[in-house]
């Protein structure tokens, strides 16, 4: 294996590991963080495979935008959940 192939193999392993972790983690907020790492690993893979355009898109959307939107959604859902929880307690 030459240097390029080693780099590609390392990036592939990183992608596989982070993608597996993203599936295995059940907590949405943590999942967002893992997704952002996965985005980084994918961006590295695309760069090594000489597709910097795709890597840039991946970095911007996968590592920054998607986790941000997930975190904001989690926050909204949690707040609503907390409120209905209080309501239930008050009704009891």
């Amino acid at each position, binding site marked *: 294996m030459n240097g390029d192939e080693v780099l590609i193999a390392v990036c592939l392993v990183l992608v596989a590991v982070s993608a597996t972790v993203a599936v295995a983690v059940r907590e949405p907020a943590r999942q967002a963080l893992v997704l952002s790492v996965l985005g980084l690993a994918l961006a590295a893979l695309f760069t090594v495979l000489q597709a910097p*355009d795709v890597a840039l898109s991946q970095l911007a959307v996968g590592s920054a935008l998607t986790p941000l939107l997930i975190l904001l959604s989690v926050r909204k859902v949690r707040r609503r959940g907390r409120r209905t929880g209080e309501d239930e307690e008050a009704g009891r």
Partner: protein
Amino acid sequence: MSHTLRRWILALGVAGLAALFTAAFLELPDFGRGGHPYGDRSVAESLGRHTANVVSAVNFDQRSFDTLGEESILFTAVLGTVVLLRQTRDEDRLPPRPARVDPWVRRYALALLPVALVSGLYVVAHGQLSPGGGFQGGVIVATAVHLLYIGVDYRALERVRPVGPYEVGDAVGEAAYLLLGVAGLVAGASFLANTLPYGTFNTLASGGTVPLLNAAVGIEVASAVVVLVSRFLDQAVEITDADGAGEEAAR
């Protein structure tokens, strides 16, 4: 349908897919092989039109109609978000209180904000020369603005980000792409044809309509992402159910 029959049908489907998949993979060119018929042709075409970044030449010249579709997908998706995440009648809007930000986080965010903004604009402007383009640069610009939310607070972000103009920007970017396409028609060629002079190779003013289409997409994507995130932020931070449940909204 019995359980066994269902399983047989599934097995048949899986086996068929596996066979087709294997057959398809056997026909693929070797991994990492240099030449490719489509690649060779699009590179020649791209150099002929003085566009240094072949990916941009494919996106904004050879297959610019595809890109119009992709741009419209984002436009429509954001439109849907705006409609879905609007404030409804049984919801209140509570201004969030400012929260304390660690001084190091603040310094880091504020130092990085101009750098990220300039990088984004650079990526949009150099789309025809180097990796990147309207989409990538647009997302970078839009996320850069949100460093204000991380570094200072929500109200600081709202001050530099009145959503109205960005909604207009979203529509203007989308319309500009269409109008550039119509300009091709007016010039006597076909829709979205590259009719401008190609310019000097590897300079900012090269590639004919490619940099203009790039800029249109940049405006559209940057505005669209700002509008998108603002709707999510509104929901997460400001909009609460009618009986003031969101008092703990920190910022």
